[in-house]
């Protein structure tokens, strides 16, 4: 249809002005549609990402001209004890968080799926932590964890457990932050797993029941394999986001005590925005990216080992 139109246009305009062909017009329209987004994308996403790779090879305070230093930042990072602590903390945080939130969110999803009394209210309550900003949540938990007046130590005291310095003890602080994160994200990941659970056909359970399987067997042999893609996805995004953990540490511990809770993102913030070592901080950002990328890649490679493909 439009081909005919473009021929007539060409005839009318003559050869002097090159007319737009149909595909030319479509490209022009695409430019109009995509242009604003593409400009914003280049200016604030792809451009900065590329530039930060370059900055990582320089010494720069953000104002002067960056001075090329090659791999020096990366070499220094490898030997920086504080950075190594930050990587260790972040890895420990992620491992604990992903393992725990995987269990709690699967458990919650299974409970929610049973449609017991008050399911919608419980789902509402578990979703509240997610729509609340992390700073509010962190402040509340700081208060709950308070050594002398915190309600947690009071409740534990009732069953005879002595008070703990949840955020002040270097052996406990990271775990305390993990618990808060698990609490905050359980509802979110449960919703994702719930979507997977709802795709499990009911007759599979009936067949298993007839064959004499008990409930635990149905859960481990039917439910878990069938929701494994959902669990895989949860593990992936939980890992990616928890490697970037920042707010809790910033609000609750400032990386302390004795650097026990300093994370990679916090190290980056301090180097980049407090000491203005923008080159060094950019190198940190790329190390963080490489770690996340490697773990994501590894996850995909291991996917076939345990994820049930429907």
């Amino acid at each position, binding site marked *: 249809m439009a081909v005919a139109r473009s021929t007539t246009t060409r005839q009318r305009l003559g050869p002097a002005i090159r007319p737009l062909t149909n595909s030319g017009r479509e*490209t022009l*329209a*695409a430019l109009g*549609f*995509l242009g*604003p*987004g593409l400009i*914003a*994308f280049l200016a*604030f*996403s792809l451009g*900065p990402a590329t530039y*930060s790779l370059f*900055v990582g090879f320089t010494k720069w305070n*953000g104002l002067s001209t960056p001075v090329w230093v090659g791999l020096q930042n990366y070499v220094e990072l490898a030997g920086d004890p504080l950075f190594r602590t930050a990587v260790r903390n972040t890895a420990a945080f992620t491992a604990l968080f992903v393992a725990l939130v995987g269990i709690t969110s699967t458990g919650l999803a*299974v*409970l929610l*799926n*049973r*449609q*017991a*009394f008050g*399911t*919608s209210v419980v789902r*509402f*309550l*578990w*979703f*509240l*932590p997610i*729509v*609340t*900003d*992390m*700073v*509010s949540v962190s*402040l*509340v938990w700081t*208060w*709950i964890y308070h050594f*002398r*007046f915190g*309600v947690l130590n009071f409740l534990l005291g009732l069953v005879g457990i002595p008070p703990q310095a949840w955020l002040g003890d270097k052996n406990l602080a990271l775990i305390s932050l993990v618990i808060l994160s698990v609490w905050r994200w359980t509802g979110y990941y449960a*919703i*994702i797993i*719930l*979507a997977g659970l709802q795709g499990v056909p009911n007759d599979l*359970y009936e067949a298993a029941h007839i064959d004499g399987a008990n409930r635990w067997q*149905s*859960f481990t042999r039917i*439910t878990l394999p069938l929701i494994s893609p959902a669990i895989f996805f949860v593990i992936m995004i939980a890992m990616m986001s928890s*490697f*970037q953990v*920042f707010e809790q540490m910033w609000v609750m511990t400032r990386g302390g005590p004795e650097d026990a809770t300093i994370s990679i993102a916090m190290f*980056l913030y301090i180097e980049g*925005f407090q000491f203005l070592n923008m080159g060094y*901080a950019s190198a*940190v*950002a790329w190390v*963080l990216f490489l770690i996340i990328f490697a773990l994501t890649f590894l996850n995909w490679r291991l996917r076939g080992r345990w994820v049930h493909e429907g």
Partner: protein
Amino acid sequence: MASNTFQPIKSIGRHHGAGSKPLVTLLLWISAILAAFPFYWMVRSSVMLEKQIMRFPPIWIPSSPTLQNFADVLTKQPFGRYILNSLLVALVVTLGQLIVASMGAYAFARLRFPGRDRIFLVYLATMIIPTQVTLIPQYVLISQFGWVDSYAALTVPFLSSALLTFLLRQFFLSIPRDLEDSARIDGAGYFRTFATIVIPLSGPPLATSALLAFMGSWTNFLWPLIVTRSRDLRTVPVGLAALQEEMSRTNYAQIMAGSVLAMLPMFILFLFLQKYIIASVATTGMKG
């Protein structure tokens, strides 16, 4: 990653799985207490005086609730201003992302142009880059524009969203092409087809996208922390963190009052849009 069904979850549940029903109900409600307790403790502490909350054993239900902490917080810090800032920024970011992403998504879904699939792939690839990577060049760019400590710094860098572009593209691909074709035959241009045919059909995915954009903006902390200097430009999370920092002696009653104020707008939003917010997670989350 995303499915094309943006329907809110209607019915949940089947009668199978582990555990008997009374046990399930019990566990469910124990979990609900765990979920809700920190919120209860926050509200309870916010309506008590400092010396009352520092009592051990704690008082579980305040005998004479007071709004004193709220009054103190609102006079010490321009908390109303923080909330307005957050709302303004979140609304601008949401609207901007919706317009920019839906138009971009339409180009990726429907228009043929050289390099389309390659550009789209680059969009997707940037989604796994952590925000920390772009942070420093973004900040330097913003300061070269002279935008540090301005609303522009809080909104403009968020106008492009690869995630929303991706989600909306997937949805646009699922719309039958015939509808647009007949509009095109009737002489409608690309933009009119987009605005009068495609957009009206995309209510649910646009609502999902809007909520994702809004929540993302409201809870953002690191970026506003970096680009704001003056009190008047702080968003809620930054203002709240500052409240805690600037308090010479930590007054938890007032900090809890601040936290209540900070979460109130989102709580109200969530109360009314619960179904859509939960659906937005379920749909963006699943189905590979």
